[in-house]
């Protein structure tokens, strides 16, 4: 029994060593393509990730939206800012998590839209997920007649914003 457990433990540590090594780019280049997603899953499972390393993750975006309903356009609203403000002012963790979800969904459709065009983006399941969440959570579960989105990239020095993506959509 003891020997069996030792073999099991040694095996677990050997697999862990492979998972750790798979985090390095030069090891990934040596790996068969079919194994890469499996190792990615394993790294996710053990929480092996990096924070504040990628330059791309340092870019700041701001999403604004408005709905056309009841025969008129609503005011423009910011998607991410109010939730983050709520977290920093009240310490509400739920708002921080909601902010992360909004940020992810918004940036996902921006990436698809900029890569494949608005028409293709509106057909994607990511866009369906984004609009469904927007209407449910930010418009009291109500489908508007029309939706307008503007995404801006923010720059600090000098403090400017640049519109990188906008579209109108009729659900």
């Amino acid at each position, binding site marked *: 029994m003891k020997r069996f457990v030792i073999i099991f*433990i040694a095996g677990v540590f050997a697999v862990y060593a492979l998972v750790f090594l798979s985090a390095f780019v030069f090891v990934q280049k040596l790996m068969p393509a079919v194994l890469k997603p499996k190792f990615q899953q394993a790294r996710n499972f*053990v929480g*092996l990730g990096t924070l504040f390393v990628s330059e791309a993750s340092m870019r700041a975006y701001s999403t604004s939206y408005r709905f056309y309903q009841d025969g008129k356009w609503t005011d423009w609203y910011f998607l991410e800012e109010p939730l983050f403000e709520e977290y*920093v002012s009240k310490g509400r963790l*739920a708002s*921080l998590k909601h902010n992360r979800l909004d940020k*992810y969904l918004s940036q996902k459709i921006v990436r698809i839209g900029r890569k494949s065009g608005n028409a293709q983006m509106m057909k994607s399941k990511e866009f*369906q997920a984004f609009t469904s969440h927007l209407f449910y959570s930010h418009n009291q579960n109500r489908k508007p007649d029309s939706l307008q989105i503007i995404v801006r990239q923010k720059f600090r020095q000098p403090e400017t914003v640049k519109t990188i993506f906008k579209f109108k959509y009729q659900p």
Partner: protein
Amino acid sequence: MSRVQSFLTDVETGLMNQKDSNANLYWFRKAVYLLLLLKMLLVWPELKTFYHHVTNAQGTIVGFSFSKLMFLPIFSSFVQLWWGLACIVVAAATVLSAKRWLSILIFIISLNYLSLFYLATNSGDKLLNFFIFSLIFVNEKALKQQVSWMLNNATVLLVKINICAVYFLNGYGKILKSSWWDGSFMQKVWELEYYTNLHLVPQWFSNPTVCLVTSWLVMLFELGFPFLIWFSTMRKWLVPIGLIFHIFIALFLSLPDFGLTMAAAYLLFVDKMGKVWSLKNNGNKKKRFNPEPLP
């Protein structure tokens, strides 16, 4: 063949001769479960939002999966009740003594938490889930020479190595970037939208000299920790420094769950956990954590 045998014998001897980790594991389990409970309670106000998003994005769950148990159609009308019961189970596991079936149940709850908040998770959530998984193999009442004693030590070792690996990967990723060498990346971190808490971060943190010094301190800590933590003389300095480091991250960079998860993992690096427990309990429960080997 004899080499394999001697390797396995060395591993066995190494794991058997490790010092008692039962007290560390006891407090580690309490901290990890308490953290999961806190997160579950604090995110409850957005439960409906996330549940709607997941069920909408993924459609009806067809096959059975422990990680998506709460998304089964049968539970769709009782999500709040499901969450409430899950919170009660985690609270009970925090207070009660460790049971294998309870550890497995908590792991299933943790998997469901990850499935629900998967787009809003960070390394901290995944690490916590891994800690909860590792606790399945732990027996806090293990006695020396028992198989469970070996499993305890192997689990503690794996979790410790994992923490070191996280630090090393982060340090390695940073040292490869010239923007970390000159401190300019650190300046960007202090301006990072939806992360930096500008209500708490002082303006002087963005000073180029301060950023340069901070960058190097962070890199030295992350690259040094995995190697130095194994020496007891360094450990007594690294543990408090690391705790301060993670409290700073939690407060200033809006990663409270990540900071607290790492802080919980530090409990495994504290040397005098058994003594603290013995003093607190006036020696009555000492045997529970420092058991004498059976004759």
